[in-house]
């Protein structure tokens, strides 16, 4: 088993953990945490591919990782802002309680 696949497996595991968190946790913030984990797993993938790819000097994977880190920061800021706003409106961050869109 090559080191690349090792990293990829770690990333996949992390992604799955994040997904599980996002899918099962009650608290909106924890869902966000899960999403962050997934993003990071993706970053790990990018870096790993960059490192073991045929053209590391092209920096493509690295750049993608850096950009995605930057974007993730923005995503976190906006997401948490939304959570705070939701908390102001609904006085809770329990996602099961917030089902006003119920059909």
């Amino acid at each position, binding site marked *: 088993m090559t080191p690349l696949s090792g990293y990829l497996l770690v990333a996949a595991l992390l992604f799955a953990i994040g997904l*599980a968190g996002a899918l099962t946790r009650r608290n909106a913030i924890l869902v*966000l945490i899960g999403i962050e*984990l997934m993003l990071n797993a993706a970053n790990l993938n990018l*870096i790993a591919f960059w490192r073991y790819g045929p053209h590391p000097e092209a920096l493509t994977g690295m750049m993608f*990782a850096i950009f995605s880190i930057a974007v993730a*920061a923005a995503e976190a800021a906006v997401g*948490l802002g939304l959570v705070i706003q939701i908390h102001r409106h609904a006085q809770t961050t329990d996602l099961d309680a917030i089902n006003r869109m119920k059909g």
Partner: protein
Amino acid sequence: MSFVLYILAALTVAGGLAAVLLKNTVHCALALTVAFAGLALLFLELDAQFAGFAQILIYIGAVAILVVFAILLTRGSETPKGSAYSHSPLVGLVIAACVFAVLGWAVLHSTAQLPPGTTSATPTVTVADIGNALMTRYVLPLEIVALLLTAALIGAVIVAMHEKEGSR
């Protein structure tokens, strides 16, 4: 397939699991930072110095703090009374498991077919190279990201802004 990788992977995964499983929200956040740190170290292990430090700076220095702030602002710091999990968590778990299964299978299956020659050759990438790349080939994405960040900043401020009395 070094020994360090195992340790770091264990650290990261442990952090991630803790972040997802712990009951107390703040503990989750702290565990998340552990996961982040592990990832940063993994990046370093992958000779991606810049990315690693950026990871620390942004995720531990900013995102984690943001999360913590959000937790305190939403009074989430005290452990919830009832179950920490939403309705029927098993379904979620199963789905996550499926995803992992698919991904893992894909990884193993595809890397098995990879020609084994292309693994070594540590790339020598200095920060200067990254800077040049950012300023030449990736300048447009850079600008766009800058724009995005500005927009996100303003947006976040406006979204989280405290309405004055009587505006609602």
